[in-house]
């Protein structure tokens, strides 16, 4: 079955980028796997009445030990003055506030 696929949007949502060549190979794979996965649409009606058992997996909100900031920073790709650095989120303003 033909799959209506907005590949650039999907890649953007997945935060991945692909070359033209990779995209064309992946499109074929996606079609095949989506067809395979669509087999679950033939599920019998009885499956609609099934509900997952309610299990509360939340732990108590209690203060406990955690990793030291030094350990966390040591694993970070870039840090400065005790903080993880990232590229600027907001563009620098060059306007004079006065």
């Amino acid at each position: 079955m033909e799959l209506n696929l907005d590949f650039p949007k999907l890649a953007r949502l997945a935060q991945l980028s692909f070359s033209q060549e990779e995209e064309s190979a992946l499109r074929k794979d996606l079609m095949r796997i989506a067809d395979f996965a669509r087999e679950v649409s033939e599920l019998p009606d009885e499956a609609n009445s099934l509900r997952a058992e309610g299990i509360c997996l939340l732990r108590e909100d209690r203060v406990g030990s955690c990793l030291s900031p030094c350990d966390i920073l040591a694993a970070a790709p870039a840090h400065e003055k005790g903080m993880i650095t990232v590229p600027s989120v907001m563009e620098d303003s060059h306007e004079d506030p006065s």
Partner: protein
Amino acid sequence: MKTLLDRTLTEHIRALEAREYSSLELTRAYLDRIEEIDSEIGAYLFVNTDEALKQAVASDLRRRRGDTRSILDGIPYGAKDNLCTKGIPTTCGSRYLEHYVPPYSATVIERLAAAGCVFLGKLNMDEFAMGSTTEHSAFHPTKNPHDPTCSPGGSSGGSAAALAANEAVFTLGSDTGGSIRQPASHCGAVGIKPTYGSVSRYGLCAFASSLEQIGPLTRTVSENATILSFLQGQDPRDATSRSAPVDSREHTIALHTLRIGLPRELFSKDIAPEVRSRALDAAHMLEKLGALVEEVSLPSLTYAAPTYYILSAAEASSNLARMDGVRFGRRAEGVRDPEALYCRTRSEGFGEEVKRRILLGTFFLSRDRYDEYYKKAFRAKLLIQAEMTSCFANCHLLLSPTAFTSAPQLGIRESDPAAIHRRDLCTVPANLAGIPALTVPFGKDCCGLPIGVQLMGPLWSEPLLYKVGEELERIRAKEWGGR
């Protein structure tokens, strides 16, 4: 005469207790073996030589003082590289984590350290556990010690190959859809996917959290039971972990009252005839010992492979969203805005298979496709769970082949990715239902490659699986001299 490396865990435990040899001698023997053979097999990604020798010396000292930590004190082992190890690289077989050194250890690593085990190193795997041949490791493929032109299976291929090449006494793997059992089957090892929640996953790099479990790979069934007993138990750091109900530990059924089901759907015509025959041989031999063996049908298993693929890809796309180049791991250079940082870091750091699954998971979870794929797959999972629960009301366990074939040749590139996922049919039902499943070697194919037989039981039925697994070992020893 048996060399040090040919001995079983039980023999090592006895020998260490009797001071026949020391943990240092044993650890050196394994490190020498790794040095000698691993450049050919490629099971290890990191060998913990200096630290392992220190741990062995400390173990020998404890033994001399009479304060050993457990029966496992001084026993050397290796772990799959998706288990965090404090101060030791943990790559998950990915370029993204190539230089990552975790600041903490997984609970299972801590438990084995507390038991006095000696840590030999980290074992190769398909990147982020996505694959079934270990060829998707970003670093190198692992070879099957039974035939180096063949794959050891995956994703815990390094764990299974290390065991088969005598490069560890036991190893740890993780199983999301068969990643312990399939490589164990291909390498002639015993492997278990325990009951969901029985082993803490704190410190396991998450792929599909609703499906995966950590478990041991060993040479014999009793060794596997021993190691699992050290791993199991509730852990406050993993909210899904639970302790086994007390009565399940004492759960015993005599062989002559055992009812074994052979699920028709798991004896598909696509399974290699030799592999299917071995599973049927195992069933017939258990029948001769008094077990009642009958064919059963679980029609919902028709949906097991696509259901597994949808749920695991969806969870992978969510779990791997944290790999964005900000807090740990790789970061793309020369990027000036955050969106480009995430995108370039991930695109440079992830391999082809991981990107494909993230993309598909994103597709299955997208607003327009959620009901058609994810919601249906979630219901299919509930249906499979319900059907298996009612099946276990009539039989104590299910027996089937573990994998569709014996170990495949390395380097075969399948053109249809869906065909690869269909071959996970025998292993994925246990992950979807959360039940335990054990693979036991049961003979070899015409090329001398091992074949495994799988036993699945209801939640917390590990003691029964081990008991029947040991019976299969005895049959194997009698029929084929232990092959």
